[in-house]
């Protein structure tokens, strides 16, 4: 598809977004002063009612809104799909910059959360006592919304990484389910040698995947303290991942199919792509997108470097946040709380194929006992819930990660395209990140 055009347009859009990014930093104080609300204000607002605008691209959004309006008849929620992911962030950033037009509540993925939170565009939900909800969520997701001691949203879903693999292909070519990354690379070689059309996995260079893989390898390339940012895309963890993945990149063992394209779905269905290392939300995607692969797929824990201790990272997933621009933040907070903690809403979300962030759901017997036909009646949620327990802590994204990801293709993406050393690409990415961050008023140090 028009990947290139999309990239160009994306880059152009990001340019607007980023001019706004730091502008938000200075004007972030607008809106009601934080700390003014309290728990009873939320209850009162829900009772009094009002109208909210909610930006989300979640498929279950409409059903959740309908259920909410039924439970709170005085509140009207206007659901707007302002675009998926980056498209929405651009519009959100533009509206923040323009000073009007932002919704009351927005869906924001974890990787983009610091960009909006640290720029002061989001309301601190701890003023409504929502910090007491901490025990309801997995630590991985809570850590993504609890930044600098402030609570910027409530987690909706999570994406602890696991390995999804096509068992039919594994059986046919006699591959063993890899426990370590070395075994994974060996499988990749065996499969591609046996069938030149088949690849163990696809990866044409995706910033979200790269950062998650560095996370799993124990890297912490981005650290932020106020406006001071340190970038080190050559730390031990990052290098560990890059050196392993180089084996696949340099030997051309990765399917040259960009993710989420029609070709990609096609190859997932016919077995030409045999595994995906990705978030626990993947079953919903593959079941709806590659129906012909039903029965072939299974899930296993993500391979590790030492093969003993289970360790994984989060990939994808996001939260709902209240915008400071909102005129009715208490009501918006009430909606977010219902949306991401009430059983009604969470169950609606699950039914649409989402993967939860709430511990009650992750440990419930009905959830764990789900055995989808697509996965040959494997109890996949047991594996995936296990993954959510072994997410490595201590990771953080850049306060301008959305922009950083948008220039990933020009740097690390080049290494993928040329089949050359990823470390060189990572260094180029780091240089671009540092340069940009400094231009935006951050003090970015390169390590």
């Amino acid at each position: 598809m028009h990947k290139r055009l999309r990239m160009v347009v994306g880059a152009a859009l990001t340019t607007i977004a980023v001019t706004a990014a730091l502008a938000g930093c200075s004007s972030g104080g607008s809106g009601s002063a934080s700390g003014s609300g309290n728990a009873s204000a939320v209850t009162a607002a829900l009772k009094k009612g009002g109208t909210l605008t909610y930006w989300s691209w979640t498929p279950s959004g409409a059903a959740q809104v309908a259920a909410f309006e039924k439970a709170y008849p005085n509140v009207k929620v206007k659901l707007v799909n302002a675009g998926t992911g980056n498209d929405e962030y651009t519009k959100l950033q533009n509206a923040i910059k323009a000073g009007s037009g932002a919704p009351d509540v927005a869906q924001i993925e974890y990787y983009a959360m610091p960009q909006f939170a640290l720029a002061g565009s989001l309301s601190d939900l701890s003023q409504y006592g929502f910090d007491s909800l901490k025990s309801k969520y997995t630590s991985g997701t809570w850590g993504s919304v609890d930044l600098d001691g402030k609570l910027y949203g409530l987690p909706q879903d999570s994406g602890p990484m696991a390995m999804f693999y096509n068992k039919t292909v594994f059986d046919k070519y006699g591959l063993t389910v890899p426990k370590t990354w070395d075994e994974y690379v060996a499988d990749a070689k065996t499969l591609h040698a046996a069938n030149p059309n088949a690849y163990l996995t696809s990866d044409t260079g995706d910033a979200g995947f790269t950062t998650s893989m560095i996370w799993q390898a124990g890297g912490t390339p981005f650290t932020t303290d106020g406006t001071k940012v340190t970038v080190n895309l050559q730390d031990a963890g990052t290098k560990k991942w890059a050196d392993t993945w180089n084996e696949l990149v340099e030997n051309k063992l990765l399917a040259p199919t960009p993710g989420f394209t029609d070709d990609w779905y096609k190859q997932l269905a016919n077995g030409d792509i045999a595994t995906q290392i990705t978030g626990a939300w993947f079953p919903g995607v593959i079941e709806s997108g590659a129906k012909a692969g039903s029965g072939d797929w299974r899930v296993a824990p993500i391979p590790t470097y030492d093969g003993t201790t289970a360790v994984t990272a989060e990939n994808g997933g996001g939260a709902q946040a209240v915008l400071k621009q909102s005129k009715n933040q208490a009501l918006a907070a009430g909606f977010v709380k219902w949306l991401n903690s009430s059983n009604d809403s969470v169950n609606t979300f699950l039914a649409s194929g989402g993967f939860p962030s709430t511990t009650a759901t992750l440990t419930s017997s009905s959830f764990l006992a789900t055995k989808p036909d697509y996965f040959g009646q494997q109890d996949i949620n047991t594996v995936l819930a296990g993954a959510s327990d072994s997410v490595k802590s201590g990771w953080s994204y850049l306060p301008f990660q959305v922009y950083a990801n948008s220039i990933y293709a020009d740097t690390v993406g080049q290494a993928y395209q040329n089949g050359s050393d990823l470390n060189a690409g990572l260094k180029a990415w780091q240089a671009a990140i540092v340069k940009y961050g400094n231009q935006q008023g951050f003090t970015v140090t390169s390590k």
Partner: protein
Amino acid sequence: MTTVTRPVAPVGDPAVGRPKRRRTPKDGGSGLREKKSLPMTAIMIVFLVYSFAPLFYLIVNSTKSQDDLLSTFGLWFGSGFDLFANVRDVFTYNGGIFLQWLGNTLLYVVVGAGGATFLATIAGYGLAKFRFIGRRLVFAVVLGSIAIPGTALAVPTFLLFSKLGLTNTPWAIILPSLVSPFGLYLVWTYAVDAIPSELLEAARMDGASEIRIFFTIAVKLLTPGIVTVLLFSVVAVWNNYFLPLIMLSDPRWYPLTVGLNQWSQQASGVAAHPIYNLVVTGSLLTIIPIVVVFLLLQRYWQSGLGAGGVKE
């Protein structure tokens, strides 16, 4: 080219009752060479394939269900014929949002392209047929604006509109569409040749007001030029993507281009739910009106392109 033999466009309503002219008169002495050239024919065939391949892909794949789309060969028909089911789904998916997008596109085209054509016509006529101070400056500005692509202006326009509070409204699409420097320039050059100044003089002598002269004489003489500008504007607004993409956040105001992209984007990310069959069928439906407009008005397009190319 027809324009060569017909320097001044015929007066009267050209859309009705004008006999179809043969493109190449077969009678002798027309001066048109009829020489067959093998390399030229080959190049034309390559061009034809190049132009038709995407259309062919679109037609073939709009007959497939989402599953067939992924499991069958891309350049030939699949196992089932789901065109009608796809069309029905396109119009009903998400509460019939496609119809809303179609309506928006029509609104932007009618008001935006129609307005652009009207403004280009009066301005072009005025510049061609009236002498006034600053005319050369206007000429320079208009020529300069043609050189700036609309995409480059989109971001400044956005910032301007957001100050005015016009983003996320239909005005954000319509107002920028109203300005067409290229159309103005086209009408201008066309008007210089197509409207004899003597005719205007005669009308003035007879006591006709300038407004009446414009609407009863100039517009009719300019019709081929106007239709050409209209065609250019309609195509431009119909295909407008970047401007609505950054201006609009509410899907209820999206035109088809941005809406279809939203459907396409739905296939990626955490909650991916691919509906490529609807994207393909929706794209096919989206190009049908523009193809029809083009076929109906193409002879004006040709004569318009030739305008100004011949000196008498």
